[in-house]
């Protein structure tokens, strides 16, 4: 039994009125923080501390890492969507002047299942020699029948991507796949979630709404490609890698190469995006390390844009059938969803648990299927499952509200149990001017405007295997250390704020050292969990190191340590602030050059909803409500998103400026998903024809709407900081909000993504096809 004590925490949504909650907390945890208004740095707009380095180009990304003697690696990839490898002779490549290592990643007789699948890799003195070495590899591929379209893959006579024995059983990245599901043809599933009695629920319904929705395959399109520089030496392995999880990659490498953890180091400094696609070591990471081991030299492997598009993960495409039953007052009686999705040759194409958790409905059923096609493996991408799932369900709810003659917000007030989202709907409606919303298609003229709303739901994830260290040096300088990586969100700045708040310093006074497994394990940056995981132990460590410093200061100030506080760069007596010592003078009293505290994360004080080995989920899910205003040109089919109001919660906000940035990024990604992005596979050749950023279209500056972000302060008394994440909720609601706004504009529902002009014109019956 660990010792505990009882504390009273402020709790509730600050904007809606605060109460308190009493918690039994571990004795070593710091005292409750008051609401942000009473804190110095927490919840404030602190600009990104490394912002200047980013805009001046000083930040070092993995693609910038150059080591002495470094080799350049490249892949030979399967050129066909389905093939048998007949021959693989690497002798000429190995013999080539300047080639230092060649490895085969497939053997003759192997079945290759997508265009772009790695077959062999080389490391050479220069990228040019590496390309020559690839050309010198004698590889023969026997073409086999293939299928790249999900609907075609579901047909009974479709070419099989796998036989039943070879089909993947689990998903190496993203969500765990349900085990033991049947595989028939190219279809695996269904994965079933059921509660209550859906048939009875539909029988009891006054109104039943049905709809079919389709979402495209989206690629992560990280601006920085997947990249690694592997440096294998006799005394250990150092890897520089653009990764969302330094300590996870370290574990993978140690296990794979039989190295002790203390001989593997993983480093990342600047990072140009991951969005779920850089969560694991991956084939490319493993290959670079193996090449370095063979060559005895550092090896750089960075994918080019074409490789990024065909073999660096993607968000699976889906087809969803929704059926909703409701009473006249809006109460849901039944919700049934059948979905098929494709993650190419991989699993993980479900539409998540969005529908399962967001609305109160006693009778519920989802049947989710994975469909294999001959295309690159999908993986987790910003709100995996929930993003396509919200696109379908939030449109179905919009349809239901119209059929019931209820305002979409009023319907949600009835069926949505989340207090946070209720408040978010209220605030968002006010900001967007919801009362201006007209009936569908009511605008006269060719350009019609409309307004729509959709909601978000994501788990409050926490990594429990997390630690960090705070050091105070004798000159008064302070360091915060963790292997946690900044994938672009600004976690380093957030860490500096937490330490500065505790020590009474400014964020700029704190040197944050992160992105290196030499430091305490910081957990992954995926699943919207980084801030939730790292800030509580950081605050605890800072509190402990301050207590140690305070013991020295107390002697000097003739006070008891508990009488002291750290404010405005000084250690002072609370009751007599005139009796004080500058922080640096207090540090000068230390008996050693530095003091340090390492802390790991305590469980959430009220426990968790669910626990995994190294991670957990907090009791309350993350919400988020987004409103979109669009203009649709009914004669060109062009949709312009003019404005988005995004209202979100993430527990206690630590840095509003960075949170707003992240929400803007999520919204922009959602606009891009809604209107533009789509992987185009040529059905006859099985190849992706837009494997670039020219015809694979990402929203740019001209497509960016006015984005207004509101972040609630939702205190729960759950941890030392009470902070949770925002990355994924910020993306989930955008596409359905836009889709609902488009419906409100034109009075015709678009049910597939992306909503390009051809789709709009077809829906309006202006193309001779519909």
């Amino acid at each position, binding site marked *: 039994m660990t010792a505990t004590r009882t504390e009273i925490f402020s709790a509730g949504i600050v904007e809606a009125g605060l109460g308190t909650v009493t918690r039994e907390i571990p004795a070593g945890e710091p005292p409750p923080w008051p609401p942000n208004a009473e804190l110095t740095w927490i919840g404030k707009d602190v600009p990104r501390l490394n912002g200047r380095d980013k805009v001046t180009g000083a930040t070092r990304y993995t693609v910038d890492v150059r080591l002495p003697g470094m080799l350049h690696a490249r892949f030979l990839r399967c050129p066909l969507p389905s093939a048998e490898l007949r021959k693989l002779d690497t002798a000429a490549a190995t013999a080539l002047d300047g080639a230092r290592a060649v490895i085969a990643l497939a053997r003759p007789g192997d079945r290759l299942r997508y265009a772009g699948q790695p077959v062999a890799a080389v490391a050479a003195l220069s990228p040019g020699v590496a390309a020559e070495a690839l050309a010198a590899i004698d590889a023969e591929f026997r073409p086999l029948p293939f299928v790249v379209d999900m609907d075609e893959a579901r047909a009974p006579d479709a070419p099989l991507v796998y036989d039943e024995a070879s089909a993947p059983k689990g998903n190496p990245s993203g969500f765990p796949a349900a085990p033991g599901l049947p595989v028939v043809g190219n279809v695996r599933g269904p994965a079933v979630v059921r509660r209550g009695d859906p048939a009875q629920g539909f029988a009891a319904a006054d109104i039943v709404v049905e709809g079919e929705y389709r979402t495209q395959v989206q690629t992560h399109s990280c601006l920085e490609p997947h990249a690694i520089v592997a440096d294998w030496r006799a005394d250990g392995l150092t890897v520089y890698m653009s990764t969302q999880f330094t300590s996870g990659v370290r574990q993978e490498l140690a296990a794979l190469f039989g190295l002790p953890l203390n001989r593997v180091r993983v480093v990342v400094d600047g990072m140009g995006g991951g969005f779920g696609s850089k969560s694991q070591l991956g084939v490319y990471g493993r290959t670079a390390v193996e090449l370095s081991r063979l060559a005895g030299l550092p090896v750089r492997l960075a994918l080019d844009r074409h490789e990024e598009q065909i073999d660096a993960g993607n968000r699976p495409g889906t087809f969803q059938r929704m059926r909703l039953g409701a009473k006249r007052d809006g109460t849901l009686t039944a919700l049934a969803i059948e979905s098929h999705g494709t993650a190419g040759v991989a699993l993980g194409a479900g539409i998540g648990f969005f529908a399962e958790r967001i609305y109160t409905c006693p009778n519920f059923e989802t049947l989710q299927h994975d469909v294999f096609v001959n295309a690159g493996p999908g993986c987790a991408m910003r709100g995996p499952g929930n993003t396509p799932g919200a696109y379908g369900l939030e449109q179905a709810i919009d349809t239901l509200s119209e059929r019931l003659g209820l305002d979409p917000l009023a319907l949600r007030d009835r069926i949505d149990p989340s207090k946070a989202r209720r408040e978010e709907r209220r605030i968002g409606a006010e900001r967007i001017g919801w009362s201006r919303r007209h009936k569908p298609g009511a605008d006269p003229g060719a350009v019609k405007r409309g307004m729509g709303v959709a909601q978000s739901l994501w788990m409050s994830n926490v990594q429990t295997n997390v630690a960090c260290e705070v050091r105070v040096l004798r000159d008064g300088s302070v360091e915060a250390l963790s292997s946690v990586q900044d994938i672009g969100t600004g976690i380093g700045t957030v860490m500096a704020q937490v330490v500065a708040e505790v020590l009474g310093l400014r964020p700029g006074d704190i040197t944050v050292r992160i992105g290196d497994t030499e430091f305490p394990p910081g957990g992954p940056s995926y699943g919207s969990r980084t801030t939730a995981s790292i800030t509580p132990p950081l605050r605890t460590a800072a509190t402990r190191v301050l207590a140690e410093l305070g013991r020295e200061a107390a002697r000097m100030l003739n006070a008891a340590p508990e009488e002291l506080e750290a404010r405005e760069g000084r250690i002072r007596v609370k009751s007599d602030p005139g009796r004080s010592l500058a922080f640096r003078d207090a540090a000068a009293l230390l008996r050693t050059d530095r003091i340090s505290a390492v802390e790991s994360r305590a469980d959430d004080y009220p426990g968790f909803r669910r626990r995994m080995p190294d991670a957990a989920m907090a009791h309350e899910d993350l919400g988020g409500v987004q409103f979109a205003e669009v203009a649709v040109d009914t004669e060109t*089919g062009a949709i312009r998103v003019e404005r988005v109001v995004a209202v979100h919660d993430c527990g206690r906000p630590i840095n509003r400026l960075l949170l707003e940035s992240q929400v803007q990024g999520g919204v922009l990604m959602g606009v891009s998903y809604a209107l533009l992005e789509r992987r185009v596979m040529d059905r006859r050749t099985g190849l992706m024809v837009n494997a670039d950023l020219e015809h694979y279209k990402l929203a740019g500056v001209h497509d960016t709407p006015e984005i207004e972000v509101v972040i609630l302060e939702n205190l729960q008394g759950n941890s030392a900081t009470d902070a949770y994440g925002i990355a994924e909720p910020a993306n989930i609601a955008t596409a359905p909000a836009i889709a609902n706004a488009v419906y409100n504009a034109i009075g015709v529902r678009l049910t597939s993504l992306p909503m390009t002009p051809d789709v709009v014109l077809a829906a309006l019956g202006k193309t001779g*096809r519909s």
Partner: protein
Amino acid sequence: MNRFAYASPATVTEAAAATGLVAEAMVTFDESAVLKAGGIDLLDLLKLELLTPSVVVNLRAIKGLDAITQDAAGNVAIGAMATLSQVAEHPLVRGSYPALATAIAGAAGPQLRNVATLGGNLLQRPHCWYLRSPAHHCLRKGGGHCFAIHGENQYHAIFDNHACAIVHPSTAATALVALNAEVELHDAEGATRRLPLEDFFVGPDDDIQRENALRPREVLTAIHLRKPASGTRMAHLRQGEKAGFDWPLADVAVVLAIGPDGVCREASVVLGAAAPVPHRARAAEQALQGRHPGEAAAGDAARAALRGATPLSLNAYKLALFETLVRRAILAALA
């Protein structure tokens, strides 16, 4: 990208002599030298190894090729090496040929427009994703068939698309053809010739492997525009999937000569992203000539513009889109 030598001649004649190839971006595998203007498209083609030259001949060291001048009669000449930004912002262009300025200002993004040249823009190769894919050995690369006709053809041609369904990528060309521009070509002997831009472009029926009539050892040096007759009105409209930095799904240039009586004497209606070359919609022009243009004439012309179109499996939406753009461009020109 293959290894190549780099030459930087000081005169056009030297440049023409140095190259067996005709344009910045002609994909002709046997030829050994290519000209580099801005180098935007060239770099893409080199990276894709659709071009593997032994020599790249830089035109940037040649003085005066980027001049924009007006002669005594009021005609304007634009040097082929003038950047898209220079052309779009030049007072002579903005004043007399606003449709050209608009067409160019909407191309690519500012960084590219600051480097890309008007000559290079007219000579760039099509951006058909099958042509640009080394894995698709299409007709234009000496292969057996056009992959687009029965493939992913949403961005492809709706006219003259029975053999090869590329669309011409230049929006500047759409406006220039509507303005009856001429190109000036300079050969290795120092001789020059001029021909209408409209005749300069080559469709797949004439030669499936080239998009223009530039001859070996010839350099495009200037684009000539006649002084617009008084009463000339013009507009260029485009619609892309993105609001900027995107290829148009459709673009339309309209040039109308309106007499003092308000009657349309002459009309040019040209469709870009519609056909392998900028597509002159003669039926639309006829629908306008001799009429008092307005809503009704614009609507008639817009419908006429699409007559004879042969949309493919995925691009029938372009009919409605072009009809809208033609009608709106006519009305915009009149406004």
